[in-house]
């Protein structure tokens, strides 16, 4: 009789141990310090929230997610090491980095190890290399910029556009994609002004833009710089439409620029102010957990974990290769997978097709002017 008890205890421990080991390891590699810290921290918090919610609801295929968070210091050399570490540790999926350069080096490692790699990086080249393991969490600039250019040409009836951009891989990449799209839409780029990250004084860029007599201005900089630029535009009484892509009309910029942000237009792929109840609920939960309003990177991080969930559920098993294959061509409906917040289709390159919005800032708030539907039918 007495021998059975310890035996049962041993069996129980073994069972507990085996279920404890049966966890889905995910590695979150993000810019948590250095120049990319704001974006990376938002993405990381989004993932963190998603993991908590999924685990509270029982996990994926009965197994909980075990997430580790690492900081790339906004340095591709460090990012490569962390990708190797994630592969060594047997991660099932890798999330990040967000910097395109860091993503380039990391995805070479995850590709070799056949680990699905989700990223919020925008550079178009990432999905043009035939890597079957990369999946975006936001539009490539090759999709978003044409939408901006189209809006400028058709809705704003602009023919001449001036460009102010920040000279780092984020801003330069966006500027290149925009200029290409603008020219394709028949617009003339009248001024092409580079600015520095951390630039304090925007009087020269705004002046140059104004002097080129454009019909509209396209601004593509980081948040603080966007705020300073908008303030300068207001100061110099720039009367033409100011258009941006995601960051310019973001909550943070509105807060930092104050009244100067009013009237700004932007194409946004993801926004916490989208007219979708699920998004508002997400925003509320995020604010409660992290005490600030998330930006689009937070949404990217959050939805990406649900992409993985959808992929695993579609594949039916915890096999990385099978999950990657299942994700290609997958259409995820928000009704079935509420965590993705909006219907999304993933194509064979890992690019996304999803609705997006044209917003305008009115009285310190984002107002959706137009909803641009996805190409795919859901």
């Amino acid at each position: 009789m007495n021998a059975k008890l310890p035996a049962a205890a041993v069996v129980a421990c073994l069972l507990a141990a085996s279920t404890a080991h049966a966890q889905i390891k995910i590695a979150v590699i993000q810019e948590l310090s250095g120049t990319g810290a704001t974006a990376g921290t938002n993405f990381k918090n989004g993932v963190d929230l998603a993991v908590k919610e999924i685990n509270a609801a029982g996990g994926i295929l009965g197994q909980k997610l075990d997430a580790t968070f690492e900081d790339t210091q906004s340095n591709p050399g460090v990012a490569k090491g962390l990708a190797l570490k994630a592969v060594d540790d047997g991660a099932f999926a890798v999330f990040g980095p967000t910097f395109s350069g860091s993503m380039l080096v990391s995805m070479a490692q995850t590709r070799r190890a056949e680990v699905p790699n989700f990223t919020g990086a925008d550079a178009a080249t990432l999905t043009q290399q035939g890597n079957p393991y990369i999946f975006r969490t936001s539009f490539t600039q090759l999709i978003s910029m044409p939408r901006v250019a189209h809006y400028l040409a058709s809705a704003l009836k602009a023919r001449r556009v001036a460009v102010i951009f920040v000279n780092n891989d984020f801003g330069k990449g966006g500027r290149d994609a925009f200029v290409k799209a603008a020219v394709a839409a028949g617009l003339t780029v009248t001024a092409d002004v580079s600015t520095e990250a951390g630039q304090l004084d925007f009087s020269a860029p705004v002046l140059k833009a104004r002097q080129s007599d454009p019909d509209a201005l396209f601004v593509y900089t980081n948040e603080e710089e966007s705020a300073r630029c908008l303030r300068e535009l207001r100061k110099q009484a720039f009367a033409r439409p100011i258009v941006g892509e995601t960051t310019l009309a973001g909550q943070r910029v509105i807060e930092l620029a104050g009244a100067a942000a009013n009237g700004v237009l932007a194409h946004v792929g993801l926004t916490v102010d989208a007219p979708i109840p699920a998004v508002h609920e997400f925003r509320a939960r995020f604010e409660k957990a992290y005490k600030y309003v998330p930006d689009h990177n937070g949404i990217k991080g959050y939805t990406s974990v649900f992409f993985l969930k959808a992929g695993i559920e579609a594949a039916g098993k915890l096999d990385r290769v099978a999950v990657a294959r299942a994700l290609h061509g997958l259409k995820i409906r928000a009704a079935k997978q509420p965590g993705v917040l909006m219907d999304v289709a993933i194509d064979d390159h890992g690019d996304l097709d999803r609705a997006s919005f044209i917003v305008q800032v009115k009285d310190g708030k984002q107002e959706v002017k137009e909803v641009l539907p996805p190409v795919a039918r859901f």
Partner: protein
Amino acid sequence: MTRRSHWLIGGAAAVVLLGAPGLLRGYGVYLLGYWLVFVVATMGLNLTVGYAGQVSLGHAAFLGVGAYSVAIAMKAGCSFWLGLPVAAALCFVLGLGLGFPALRVQSIYLAFATLGFNVAMWLVMRNEEWLTGGTSGINDVGRPAVLGWSLSGSLAYYYFELAVAAVLGALLWRLLRSPWGKAFTALRDNPIRAESLGIDVQAYTLLAFAIGAAYAGVAGALFAGLVQFVEPTPFSLGASFLMYLMVVVGGAGSFFGPAVGAAVGVLLPEWLRFAQGWYLVAFGACVVLLVRWLPGGLLGIPDRVRARRARAAAATRGRP
């Protein structure tokens, strides 16, 4: 320290350096490779700072020139074995070019001048897209092959880096034992007195500067092969500061200081990662504490012990 203990420590280090990577996985080998890059770079900086007594806060610029030279050369179809000496030679010339005007000013202003040089080089790397790829950088930099044997495996490349570091270390050792080396040390201790003894201060300082730059160039070449992606971020002012930090913390003017300092700069943050969001705070605090208690650097400890023993001995001798 006795010669015997020197040999023992050296032997142990050799065993660890040669054997450990075989036991480590991808991340560990990569990290050691990263450390080796900075060992070579700080060896050069140590020559400039520790032995010749100059201040250079722009070392990362030479690292960048080396990395880009190799990356551009290989993209153009040349072999790594051509890119490597080009990187070293280019940095040597740049070092001479920078040193010549800059060394006419006092040490503190030399620090500023090198700082300015770093920022200027970084701007060129960032802006001249036609040459450097600009902010997108140069991707898929290849690794060399030796006599048909490819070095692209992570373990193979590590041993290659180790070999390069060992060769450069040996060269430096010979240099420091030569009359040149003595001149450098005289320079460090008192430049005006050295001049009065007939040492051409200008020439030797310039030489120390240029050789230091060349070492950084080679380190940059190794870096390009290690990460296989070259873009401006790792060659910014912050990186120069970090390398300077490595030299001082390791022990400026001590031969193995760079190895220790590079370990502190590269490996310590990784070991501190368990502190999650605070790991860099811990790193900064460690640096402050290290310098505070060991201003002569970690390898300055033997000197302090020796000095303390000497003082104690002198005190006992002085007693009536």
